């Protein structure tokens, strides 16, 4: 069923245990080294596993598949049986397997699956990964002078203590002293020194402490027994101690990894933009790996780097780097970053696409230890997911905006459909009745013509509003602020209204000492006209008030009327597009105030409506006095001709 394509495959025996991940990586690495296919295999020993285990196995199988393995599940009475069968069937060249964590030491003496496989005479290499130490770690301490000296010192102290013990029948008192010393040595300087110390202890005891003194008397059988016990006990204890120490180390390392991942994840979750993500990632990577980090985002033929303090010109082009990273991900070492120049690069791949590249520059003189790659990879995944989350948020926001625009468009069509048709119908009707044959009464003719003019004014006004709002919202209108007296824009707004409507009952209250205000006269004039028109509409014929005052940094304007006022629940909504107060009857389309808000906000100001004490409503807006006001002319006569810079 498995036809060996080029080379004999490599089998990786998977279980539900966590070390399977390491087996997968080792298998993948081995397969790449030997250019051989590899198979992840799970031996199901007749339903002994629970569903939870089955799920976990499924996870490892998927991971193996992701890294290019073929996966198989074999049913067999024992693990060894299943593996042996499959190895024969596929003519596998190597079998990668782990050793179970909770096996007692004596189980290793000829009863492990590996031993059993060997007994079955398989023509295959068996690679066993010990779960106690990482496969890459080779901590063999050399013969060091300090250890040597230490060992002798400890033994000297032990001998000194033993010397104090009274002669005859002293073995039971001397033994623990040496046992302690040897254990200490083995724990501190390794098992080689432990064995050395054991041998030396026996000689010392025999030579110095046992009668006859200063003679080696190895023929005494209690001495031989002592020798044996000593050695065995020491070795056992050393083994246990080392194992404990390694496990504690591993637990500490994993705890550290988990904690740093947790911290990174939590910090990334708070980030609102790629800049923040990059800053957080760089900070955490610097802290954990003592290396500098950048995020690279492809932009055309170059990169955008964040943080931006990186010379982009030194980087290979995205067209070159990205495929290499993806390739490295697929065929290369699953943990190994791709070296680019003196830095390492990792592809930031989220769930569906590349989000960018993580570039790591290790600190001078200390390359990243391969043991940290696993964590680095996990960091990259976290960062990629954070970027992906941001991208999705942005996409969701865009989609929402589009929906809102769409809704606004349909509301617009609905609202203006009616408001455009009414004046058009009136104009059309009036014009056609003027064209009827026969005399039209002079007064009637005037009426009809006046109506045509008024209705077309309304149309022009409505269209103007729609255009203004669209352009304000799309940012097509640039606010051109110029410092000017408020009086001028108030004057031009009132002038424009009164030239059309005659003198209006508007009380104006502008203090003498108002400062110059930076504003766009055309736009603010429009705000004032819209607010005044709105007030006229809701308080027809009643007096209006237009006031201004200023505080440091701001100038305030208010248009207030004595109309029916705005119910409190609508005071914010009146500035919404197409919002009309219920029961307000004829009037605008509900764009005037929306335009006001857009203009005021474009000036960096704020606008709101509120009830007026004593009845009526008040619309207030504030404009910021930002920037430096221009120097005022110094007295009327002192302005030099032509030299007013």
């Amino acid at each position, binding site marked *: 069923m498995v036809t060996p394509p080029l080379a004999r495959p490599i089998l990786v025996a998977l279980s539900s245990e966590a070390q399977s991940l390491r087996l997968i990586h080792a298998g993948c690495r081995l397969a790449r080294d030997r250019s051989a296919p590899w198979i992840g295999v799970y031996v199901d020993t007749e339903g002994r596993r629970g569903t939870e285990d089955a799920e976990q196995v499924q996870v490892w199988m998927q991971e193996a598949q992701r890294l290019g393995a073929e996966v198989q599940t074999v049913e067999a009475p024992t693990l060894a049986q299943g593996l042996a069968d499959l190895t024969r069937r596929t003519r596998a060249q190597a079998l990668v397997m782990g050793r179970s964590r909770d096996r007692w030491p004596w189980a290793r003496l000829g009863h492990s699956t590996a031993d059993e496989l060997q007994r079955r005479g398989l023509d295959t290499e068996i690679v066993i990964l010990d779960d106690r130490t990482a496969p890459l770690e080779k901590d063999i301490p050399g013969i060091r002078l300090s250890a040597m000296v230490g060992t002798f010192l400890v033994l000297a102290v032990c001998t000194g203590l033993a010397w104090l013990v009274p002669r005859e029948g002293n073995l039971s008192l001397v033994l623990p002293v040496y046992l302690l010393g040897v254990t200490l040595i083995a724990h501190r300087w390794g098992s080689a020194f432990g064995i050395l110390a054991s041998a030396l202890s026996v000689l010392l005891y025999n030579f110095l402490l046992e009668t006859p003194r200063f003679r080696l008397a190895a023929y005494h059988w209690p001495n031989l027994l002592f020798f044996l016990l000593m050695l065995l006990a020491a070795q056992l204890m050393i083994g246990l101690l080392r194992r404990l120490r390694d496990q504690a180390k591993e637990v500490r390392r994993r705890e550290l990894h988990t904690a740093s991942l947790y911290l990174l994840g939590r910090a990334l979750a708070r980030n609102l933009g790629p800049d923040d993500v990059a800053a957080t990632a760089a900070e955490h990577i610097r802290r954990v790996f003592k290396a500098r980090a950048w995020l690279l985002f492809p932009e055309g033929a170059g990169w955008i780097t964040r943080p931006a303090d990186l010379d982009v010109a030194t980087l290979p082009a995205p067209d070159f780097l990205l495929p290499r990273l993806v390739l490295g991900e697929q065929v290369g070492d699953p943990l190994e970053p791709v070296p680019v120049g003196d830095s390492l690069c990792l592809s930031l791949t989220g769930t569906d696409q590349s989000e960018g590249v993580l570039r790591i520059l290790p600190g001078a003189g200390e390359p990243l230890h391969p043991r940290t790659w696993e964590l680095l990879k996990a960091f990259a995944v976290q960062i990629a997911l954070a970027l992906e989350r941001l991208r999705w948020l942005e996409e969701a926001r865009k989609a929402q905006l589009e929906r809102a625009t769409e809704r606004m468009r349909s509301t617009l069509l609905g609202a203006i459909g009616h408001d455009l048709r009414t004046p058009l119908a009136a104009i059309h009707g009036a014009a056609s009745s003027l064209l009827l044959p026969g005399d039209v009464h002079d007064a009637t003719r005037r009426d009809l013509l006046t109506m045509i*003019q008024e209705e077309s004014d309304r149309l022009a006004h409505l269209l103007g509003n729609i*255009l203004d709002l669209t352009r304000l919202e799309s940012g097509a209108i640039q606010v051109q602020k*110029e410092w000017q007296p408020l009086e001028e824009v108030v*004057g*031009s707004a009132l002038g424009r209204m009164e030239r059309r409507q005659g003198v209006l009952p508007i009380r*104006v209250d502008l203090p003498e000492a108002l400062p110059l205000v930076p504003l766009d006269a*055309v736009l603010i004039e429009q705000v004032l006209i819209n607010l005044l028109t709105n007030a006229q509409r809701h308080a027809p014929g009643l007096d209006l008030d237009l006031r201004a005052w200023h505080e440091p940094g701001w100038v305030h304007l208010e248009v207030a009327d004595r109309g029916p006022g705005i119910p409190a629940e609508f005071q914010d909504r009146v500035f919404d597009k197409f919002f009309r107060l219920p029961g307000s009857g004829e009037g605008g389309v509900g764009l005037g105030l929306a335009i006001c808000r857009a203009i005021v906000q474009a000036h960096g100001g704020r606008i709101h409506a509120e009830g007026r004490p004593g009845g009526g409503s008040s619309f207030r807006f504030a404009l910021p006095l930002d920037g430096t006001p221009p120097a005022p002319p110094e007295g*009327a006569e002192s302005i030099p001709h032509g030299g*007013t*810079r």
Partner: protein
Amino acid sequence: MNQPLILIIEDEEALRRFLIPTLSGQRYQVLSAATATEGLAMARSHNPDLVLLDLGLPDRDGMGVLKELRSWSRKPVVILSARNQERDKVRALDQGADDYLAKPFGAAELLARIRVALRHTLQTDVAEPLLRSGGLSIDLERREVSLDGRIVKLTALEYRLLEALVRRNGKVATHRQLLAEVWGPGGEGNTHYLRIYMAMLRKKLEADPTRPKHFITEPNVGYRLNLETPGD
């Protein structure tokens, strides 16, 4: 004297259909062109007394047409422009256009602008010595300004600004033009000086400075002095 000849360069037919009878009804002679090329050719062959020029023409930029017209003719040009194009208006005015009308405009407004523009060509730069409007009277010969019979004291700069406006009575003056005329070359950047002096003039010469009758602001463009003249 012959009735003045007005050339309309406007591509929209509806507008031409409104302009031609309106102007003919006022006894002006009217010519019309729908493209810039045609308009320029007509201007050369007929030498009209006034040109109504639309800035948005299909074949050429209106600004280019204006420049070419100005290269050989001093006759008034009134720009027809859409709303919200203050920048274009200012550019056209600074390029030598005499005035502008923002669409949509009414017949009365159109005729008033044309009258003012034509009057200015007839009495080139000779401002009338005595102007009266409402309670305001300005005597350019005696350099005396009075409001409701009381003499108003103006500073030298205020007077120069008033003079510059009076010379253009009824026509719009851009910020740049007024600054150059009153403060001399190099003063163009100080629009706020102009605004402050306008505020001072209004305070002294308007009955209610927040409802100016004479010193009209054209937002983001400039100012227009609006004094009744005996000719109107």
